[in-house]
């Protein structure tokens, strides 16, 4: 059971993720989906292979509902039912004129996600920035309202990872970071559960090996949706078939 990653494992699994996403995009499974929601690539930051995984995607938001910035019903966002309920309530509570004008006032928001390797914690770490179209930063309170995580926070404050602004470990510029100090514990639980299932099936060490290869994908499938990263289940299926 593995709670940490080495740098080499991290890099290999990043490459694998890019391969899976490319397969998914090439498979034609995604209909009407925004292509750039899956455009993960490797950003090399020196000539020795150091780097991180990057995803940039553009989403539209409704500028008319500042209290509860409403992520429009855009297919490229994986909104949990809880958030959708909130959206519906917000829309119902506003009058018709608001809804009409808000449709006219959609604006583009640029998300930039980085997955970097933490040498200290030996785990992957998620960084994000959200920009306006003129490349200025969106204020943190507004970013927070855009993240699906904010709707979980209302009910269950303690179980979420802490987000704060830090310097990007490779680029040295401000990014918001999901703090990595609980990642090993989280993955310990996730992968331990997997092992129990496999033990029932009398599987061998090969399965454990496979879990090691699943670390990044498992982690991203838990953490990603909290910050608006879409990871369709088809990618997880493709991952299984690739073994």
């Amino acid at each position, binding site marked *: 059971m593995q709670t940490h990653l080495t740098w080499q494992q991290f890099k290999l699994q990043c490459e694998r993720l890019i391969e899976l996403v490319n397969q998914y995009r090439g498979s034609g499974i995604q209909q009407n989906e925004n292509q750039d929601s899956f455009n993960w690539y490797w*950003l090399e*930051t*020196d*000539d*020795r*292979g*150091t780097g991180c995984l*990057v995803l940039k995607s553009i989403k539209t938001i409704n500028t008319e509902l500042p209290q509860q910035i409403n992520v429009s019903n855009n297919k490229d966002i994986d909104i949990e039912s809880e958030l959708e309920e909130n959206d519906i309530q917000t829309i119902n509570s506003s009058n018709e004129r608001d809804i009409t004008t808000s449709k006219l006032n959609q604006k583009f928001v*640029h998300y*930039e996600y*980085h997955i970097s390797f933490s*040498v*200290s*914690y030996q785990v992957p770490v998620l960084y994000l*920035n959200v*920009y306006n179209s*003129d*490349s*200025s*930063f969106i204020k*943190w309170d507004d970013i927070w309202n855009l993240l699906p995580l904010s709707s979980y926070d209302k009910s269950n404050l303690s179980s979420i990872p*802490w987000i*704060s*602004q*830090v*310097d*990007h*470990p*490779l*680029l*040295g*510029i*401000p990014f918001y970071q999901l*703090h990595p*100090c609980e990642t090993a514990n989280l993955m310990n639980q996730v992968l331990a559960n997997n092992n129990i299932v496999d033990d029932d099936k009398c599987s061998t060490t090969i399965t454990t090996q496979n879990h090691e290869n699943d670390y990044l994908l498992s982690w991203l499938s838990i953490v990603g949706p909290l910050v608006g990263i879409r990871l369709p289940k088809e990618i997880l299926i493709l991952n299984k078939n690739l073994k």
Partner: protein
Amino acid sequence: MSFFDEDVKKSIWEGKIPIMFTLSPNDLTSHIPPSSLSFVIVMMMMMMMLTFANQKTKKMFVPRNSYFPLITGVVKDHFSYSTLVISDSELWLEYKGIPLKWHIPIGVLFDMLVATPDTTASQIWNITVHFQSFPEKVLLRCSNEDAIRTYYKNVLKEANYIKQGDINKLNNLSINQTNELWDGLKLHDYEKFWSINKMFYPGNGYKHIPYRIIQNNKAPLQDLISPINENGQETTLESLFSKIAFNNSNNSSSNNNNNNNNSNNNSNNNNNIDTSNETQQSTTTLSSSSTNSTTLLQVLNSGSIRYSIQGIEPPLNSSLIWLGDYFSHPDNFLYIVLA
């Protein structure tokens, strides 16, 4: 030498830097109310500016082992008569066009940006104080004390994770102890701070030594290094440097220029969204893998750059454990500055 040799710890803790804070000329003049009916206000402002002309600067001795947001309250109060813009705007500092990263210890910033081999203890660091055009693409936001407290706590966690493989010691602190540690740092109170901080020093129990090598205001290099080498001896500074691949092709002056450009762009908010590619070029000199390339030790031996820790150059045969115990900053990281 015993870890509880108070003199060494205390003299490191008490290191101070003389700083002259000067209010940015932009902030002094640019907020004259635009409309003509504000004549009275303009006159009042001009009188204030004359009265408080000598308050455009503020001289202070500032602890190396602290952070700027913990000491700039005084600076902000001092300038409050000379500018109309500060009420709730974020103060930020600049030196020679480089916005100063508040989350890096003050002494590390000084060694990285100012100190030269000829630096004397009395050299004054001239810093410009801004209240407008916050360079959000370069500096982390620090709107209140909680921001710096959270940041400090997270770095302390990281350092302790490196040292012990978990953060139990930190998590087991009582609320009183956590407050004592923070107050000790904030008030620069040696007794208070070290009464708690000493718990984070396991003596011989280190898994790894938390260090950061930093140069030219770029992202620091860090990796896991064992305190004991393969021969069972304590790892020295020399063996750490020999494990680090180093490419000194970007010299310091060109990097400083990069930083200047960044800060200018940022005040206008006209940066390209693709910030990652922009800075990519300037982050390539440090790497932790050591293959056939030049090592940091070789570069240091060639004399083209120097290293310093807490403003001095400890001998290459110094043990990392010893340095970690005595020369670490309050966040428990050992900062090695290359300049």
